[in-house]
């Protein structure tokens, strides 16, 4: 699947052999067009409306250009982009609790210093955990839906606290007529029947960090004694899969294994139905970090997997390749985003000592501290709110900015030293994925629009369940 991308001012045209698309950056509108429309938009961009009109007037057969001009106007391709005005403050609605600064794995790329974040191994106490929950309810203003994620290290090393905090937060939510949703990021090595029953009973979403097939997982994510972790996880996941058949894996991609299909297939073999792959965010001089050339290679990998992804959907045997699905979902909903995430804006990460940071990736980094649970300091929030994607020098003219929203603050910081300056190879890769997703979206729209609606419409996340009943497909 080869895709050609051409920027036209704030907008972009996406073409493959059979498809011509135009994407409106202002409202994330995706249009199927004739090439003639693109041609006209280029003329208008280069010379202005009146000059373009006069250039083509005498050869404009059947007033086609005027018709296309009307379409461009009607679809707001000729309007200036609306100005985004950031808020001054924002409520905290989501807490990521580092309940354990300890881990039983020794992942070779861990940004958390092996789970201890450069400190001594420790667990969050009940007092700190309860105070974190209390602060979430205090700082959420009138938000009715809150989220709590249990993170680490390996959070299940402190499962007793998780069980207590789920109960504690649920009771408080009930008393305040709010809802709270729970999730957990785990390495998958500690699932027992008892823990699985608890996760099921408490409706805790689980994201399992796992890097792919055995030969990749055992190298990237060994136990502390050096032994591979694949076999243990593959075994222990089965009890969770029995009650949660549509589990998500989050894989880190390193230079050693650049084959996306190898990673995805390896994770599907374990039982995951939904896979998200992210390139490693490297430490300094990391030998298995991706080079700029590797990011280019990844584009080919996405093209191959994108083709398979599309064919599988149309054949009724879909698999959840998150990286494309997320972009498809954004396209479906015409999403316009100005921030890459809620870090520091609506989200706080809390370490075991009660320190607050803008997100879990910045834990222990004082420049990104928001004080402590007892002495909060939200001054960084205003800075983050001002750094929206339309305000950034590197992003404000990019056609993909309202889909990407400026890339992860942490990735930016690691690569460029500034949270609002993105890493160019990642930008290029994201734009490639976005364009590829637009072509896939268009093909799905053309071949089976009802299926597209079924995949993404509200309250029907049937795609996640891998269910496409034959009688409901057109």
């Amino acid at each position, binding site marked *: 699947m080869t895709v050609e991308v051409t920027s036209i001012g704030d907008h972009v045209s996406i073409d493959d052999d059979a498809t011509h698309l135009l994407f409106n950056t202002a409202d994330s509108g*995706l249009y199927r067009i004739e090439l003639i429309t693109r041609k006209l938009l280029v003329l208008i961009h280069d010379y202005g409306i009146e000059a373009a009109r006069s250039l083509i007037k005498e050869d404009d057969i059947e007033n086609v250009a005027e018709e296309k001009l009307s379409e461009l106007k009607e679809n707001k391709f000729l309007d200036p982009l609306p100005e985004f005005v950031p808020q001054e403050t924002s409520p905290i609605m989501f807490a990521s609790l580092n309940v354990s600064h300890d881990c039983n794995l020794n992942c070779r790329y861990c940004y958390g210093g092996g789970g201890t974040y450069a400190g001594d191994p420790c667990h969050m106490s009940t007092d700190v955990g309860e105070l974190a929950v209390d602060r979430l309810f205090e700082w959420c203003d009138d938000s009715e839906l809150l989220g709590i994620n249990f993170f680490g290290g390996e959070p299940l090393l402190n499962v007793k606290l998780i069980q207590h905090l789920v109960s504690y937060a649920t009771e408080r939510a009930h008393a305040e007529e709010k809802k709270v949703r729970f999730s957990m*990021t785990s390495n998958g090595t500690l699932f027992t029947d008892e823990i699985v029953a608890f996760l099921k009973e408490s409706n805790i979403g689980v994201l399992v960090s796992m890097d792919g097939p055995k030969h990749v997982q055992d190298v990237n994510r060994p136990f502390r004694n050096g032994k591979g972790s694949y076999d243990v996880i593959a075994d222990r996941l089965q009890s969770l899969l029995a009650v949660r058949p549509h589990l998500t894996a989050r894989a880190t991609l390193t230079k050693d294994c650049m084959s996306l299909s190898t990673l995805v297939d390896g994770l599907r073999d374990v039982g995951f139905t939904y896979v998200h792959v992210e390139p490693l965010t490297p430490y300094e001089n990391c030998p298995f970090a991706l080079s700029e050339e590797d990011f280019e290679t990844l584009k080919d990998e996405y093209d191959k997997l994108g083709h398979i992804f599309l064919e599988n959907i149309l054949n009724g045997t879909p698999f959840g390749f998150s990286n494309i699905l*997320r972009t498809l979902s954004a396209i479906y909903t015409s999403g316009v985003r100005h921030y890459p995430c809620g870090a520091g804006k609506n989200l706080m990460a809390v370490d075991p000592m009660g320190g607050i940071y803008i997100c879990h990736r910045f834990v222990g980094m004082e420049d990104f501290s928001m004080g402590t649970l007892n002495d909060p300091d939200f001054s960084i929030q205003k800075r983050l709110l001002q750094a929206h994607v339309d305000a950034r020098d590197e992003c404000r003219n990019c056609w993909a900015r309202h889909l990407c929203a400026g890339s992860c603050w942490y990735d930016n910081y690691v690569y460029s030293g500034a949270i609002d300056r993105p890493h160019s190879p990642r930008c290029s890769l994201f734009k490639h994925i976005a364009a590829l997703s637009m072509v896939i979206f268009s093909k799905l729209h053309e071949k089976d629009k009802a299926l597209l609606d079924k995949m993404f419409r509200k309250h029907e996340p049937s795609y996640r369940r891998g269910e496409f009943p034959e009688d409901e497909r057109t």
Partner: protein
Amino acid sequence: MNRHTDVVNFRRMREREGGDTTIRLNGTSEPQPPTCPDDYICPWVDICTIDFDPCAFIDICGIDYH
């Protein structure tokens, strides 16, 4: 600008393409309030940014997949 080339191409395109109108492919459904279905257990990766439904945490939590 090479006016002749551009205009000729313009005419040829028109003759070749057959006159389909521009069609919007997305965002045509009625806007939905951000929410999650009651039976939907949301893993970390879905909480972060843009969910299928859409998620109530769109653009909010975003810790997502890292």
